[in-house]
């Protein structure tokens, strides 16, 4: 049980650090987000004292309250789900905008990552099994896939599949001409899948190489272990040695590496969303940056970080359940 307690403690500390970082960044870095935001809010009408206080707590106070008091107030607002008001889409609260964008990004990255993981682990296990054959010669070429910037690959796909051949739509998360908004119908689901194909393909192609390489190297190392030799010497079927002895043990480090990889995938996909104008968190954040909408930008950053932390936390718990060694030594 101490394993789980330790992990919970670590994530609690990380959560605290991430939130505090989000609180400190606008205060420590140069620039004056508060006056910019207040000036822009003024254009939309008069600012109530409550709204001004909200901007000051989120982005930096000037004078009348201490920073520590702001910090406490900041936490209080977070617990109530209050992330301020967006100026670009005044008067929509930041939390509502994020709530609308979150499912798109989580769905896209979640599904694509699982597909990339399964393909990468499968091919990697096979490549490791075939070590010392012609397969070794093509392994280095996977590094080319890993070095592709996500957004550039996306540009290439849009140019080929959407502009030149017209197979897939260029932009958006669904067909905005046929649907007024998300609805529950097969036609809508079909439209979403059609629009998600190119972004998903981008994520799978750019991230599959990493899984493949890691798995292949781990597989090569595992296959030279004594217990694999013993299993072969016992005359077990190669299929059984492959699945039960080698792959099962070799896949564990890939699960551990999931956390670090997820950070890369999220980072890459957020920029990629601009190429497709995909209605997710990345586009929301990039639009916010372009419009100096600091509350929206800080809010999106916070939610992205929290979402990644939540995913990692779940992965950690799953790994603790699958692999008893992490529970004892982790």
């Amino acid at each position, binding site marked *: 049980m101490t394993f789980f307690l330790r992990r919970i403690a670590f994530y609690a500390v990380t959560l605290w650090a991430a939130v505090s970082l989000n609180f400190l960044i606008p205060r420590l870095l140069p620039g004056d987000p508060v006056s910019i935001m207040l000036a822009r809010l003024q254009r939309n009408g008069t600012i109530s004292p409550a709204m001004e206080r909200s901007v000051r707590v989120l982005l930096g106070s000037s004078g009348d309250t201490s920073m520590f008091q702001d910090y406490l107030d900041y936490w209080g607002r977070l617990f109530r789900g209050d992330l301020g008001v967006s100026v670009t889409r005044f008067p929509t609260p930041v939390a509502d905008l994020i709530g609308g964008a979150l499912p798109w990004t989580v769905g896209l990255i979640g599904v694509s990552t699982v597909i990339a993981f399964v393909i990468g682990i499968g091919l990697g296990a096979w490549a490791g099994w075939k070590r*010392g054959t012609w397969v070794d010669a093509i392994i280095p070429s996977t*590094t080319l896939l890993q*070095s592709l910037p996500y957004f*550039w690959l996306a*540009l290439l796909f849009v140019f080929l599949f959407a502009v030149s051949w017209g197979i897939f739509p260029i932009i958006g998360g669904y067909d905005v001409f046929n649907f007024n908004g998300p609805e529950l119908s097969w036609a809508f689901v079909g439209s979403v899948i059609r629009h998600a194909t190119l972004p998903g393909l981008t994520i799978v192609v750019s991230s599959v190489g990493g899984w493949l390489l890691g798995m292949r190297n781990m597989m090569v190392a595992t296959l030279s272990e004594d217990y694999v030799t013993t299993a072969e010497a016992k005359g077990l079927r190669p299929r059984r040695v492959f699945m039960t002895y080698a792959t099962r043990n070799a896949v564990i480090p890939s699960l551990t590496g999931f956390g670090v990889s997820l950070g890369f995938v999220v980072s890459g996909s957020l920029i990629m969303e601009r*190429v497709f104008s995909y209605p997710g968190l990345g586009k929301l954040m*990039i639009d916010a940056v372009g419009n100096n909408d600091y509350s929206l*930008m800080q809010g*999106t950053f916070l939610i992205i970080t929290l979402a990644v932390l939540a995913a990692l936390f779940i992965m950690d718990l799953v790994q603790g359940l699958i692999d008893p060694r992490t529970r004892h030594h982790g």
Partner: protein
Amino acid sequence: MAKGALRQLLPSRSGKLTTGLVIVIGITLFAIIAPFFTQNPRSSQNPAMLPPGADHLLGTTSLGYDVFAQLAEGARSSLLVGVTAGAIAIVLSIIFGIVAGYVGGWTDAGLRLVTNIMLVIPAIPLQIVVASYLQKRSLVLVAVILGVLGWAGGAVVLRSMALSLRTRDYVSAAKVAGEKTWRIILVEIMPNLLPLLAAQFLFAVILAILNEAGLSYLGLGPNNSITWGTILNDAQGGSALTRGAWWWFVPPGVLIALFGCGMSLINFAIDEIINPKLRSAPQAAKRVRKAGGDVVVNAEQEPEKVNA
């Protein structure tokens, strides 16, 4: 260090290493030499949207800039940012990785916590936020942002190696002989981590170049500079995609991918020094197959024969 030992630390000559070195050195030379021979990358005197031809090797942009000239200038800035950020990242990785792993105790616990927090906070969103507050961004400032926020992965790898080195006899001997901690780290531990440090440095450079391209594509890169990322940003703004100007947005991405691929190939060669199993196991498997001849090959294809 003896000559033989040094040779052991150097990567063995292989196809991967040669290909990697040729790509990396080729692109580096391109970045250094080409800008002297191309026209001014900021000159918009040319006709707009020309496809590649004799006058303009890679055509021109919608504003009449020569793409080849921009590419050469971009190579210079992109590599400069990459190497600077990589250097900053590797120094921080050493502090947070090797020092933590060697010193241990509370120092280790503290540094490790910072490392793990930096590791799980996704890098690009953080870099976007920080860059958006810094309105005036020079090349060096962007490199600093990328380096300071991109060292955590390397630190984790270095720490685990440092942990395994600190209990070695020669380190204990140096400690007993009264050597200072910083001297033990620099003289006894670091040389043994040299291949790993080199690998982490190359990795940090690739990552910085990729992230710089991402930031610049979003318009958050260095101001008034041309990098591979800003070319892509311009291409997006000039609707290169819908106008079919592939010569505008394809080359920068190809160069980024090739450079990253070259660096990774060098890393492959280094990896085989650090982890001899990667080198010996495939060779062993090949030997077994050759020695076994047809029997083993058949057995791999038809599992039943093994049991027979």
